[in-house]
């Protein structure tokens, strides 16, 4: 049986790395231009969701198993809160990043990067989780019908 979705598969295979790289670009250039953790997280999740839409949910679940998603969700919030607790321990207020380095501006930099990473982690995994939750429920559409 010839696969009727050759074009979709080839093109999405080509595009997924680019989408993921663009997500990381948005993440790490949040200091210089528009962007940041939220947008990057959504774009990164979109890469995985595109893969899941084309190659099937089971393939996506094999690559990024639900247990990872569950861990990632809490890890993101933990990273954000942990940065705050770290500033506490180092003698500052909650989430005042100035104490993270000798130079307060550098400390602010590090703090912002850590916090944005936490947001990225949390948003990506929550988006994938919601898609998994809804997608696993759907009555699978017949192979020829999409």
């Amino acid at each position, binding site marked *: 049986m010839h696969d009727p979705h050759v*074009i979709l598969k080839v093109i999405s295979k080509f595009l997924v790395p680019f989408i993921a790289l663009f997500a990381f670009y948005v993440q*790490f250039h949040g200091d210089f231009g528009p962007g940041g953790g939220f947008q990057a997280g959504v774009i990164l999740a979109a890469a995985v969701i595109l893969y899941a839409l084309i190659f099937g949910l089971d393939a996506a679940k094999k690559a990024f198993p639900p247990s990872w998603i569950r861990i990632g969700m809490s890890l993101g919030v933990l990273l954000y809160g942990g940065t705050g607790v770290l500033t506490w321990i180092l003698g500052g207020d909650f989430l005042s990043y100035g104490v993270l380095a000798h130079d307060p501006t550098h400390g602010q930099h590090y703090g912002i990067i850590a916090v944005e990473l936490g947001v990225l982690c949390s948003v990506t995994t929550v988006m994938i989780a919601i898609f998994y939750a809804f997608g696993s429920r759907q009555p699978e559409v017949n192979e020829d019908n999409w």
Partner: protein
Amino acid sequence: MRHASLLTLAMAATWLMLSGYFIGMILTFGFISIILVVWMTKRLSILDNESVPYLNILKTCKYYIWLFIEIVKANIQVVKAVIGPNAEISPSLIKIPMHTDIDIAQTMFANSITLTPGTVSVDVQKDHILVHALLKEMSKPEDFYEMHCRSAKAVSIDLKDN
């Protein structure tokens, strides 16, 4: 391994093109994210010839320039059909034979057909493409053979003789 290194190169080029900042911090982040992307591609098991077709990039660029001229030519025909004084269309479904069974060549050919206005590839089968054509004079299967040859050459694949 060859695919991974090629993908790394392509991603590095893309990163530099997008970023334009040559600060140590950003370059480090770029390095980390490229590694993450390659790992993710590997993890999704889509790291093969189709996701990394960068060896033929010069040929592909040449092909797209040729295709762009074809698109312009076909577009003028279609625009005439749309807003001409006695506009008339004659839609038809035709089967265009395909002499290859390699995915990327099929994709290239079918996408070229769709890109050319007036023809849309509707269904890709094993040895032919079902094409919906807007105008009768565009719907001769033998006219597509040149495009087929060129698109296959653009990804370095030889056609089977038929």
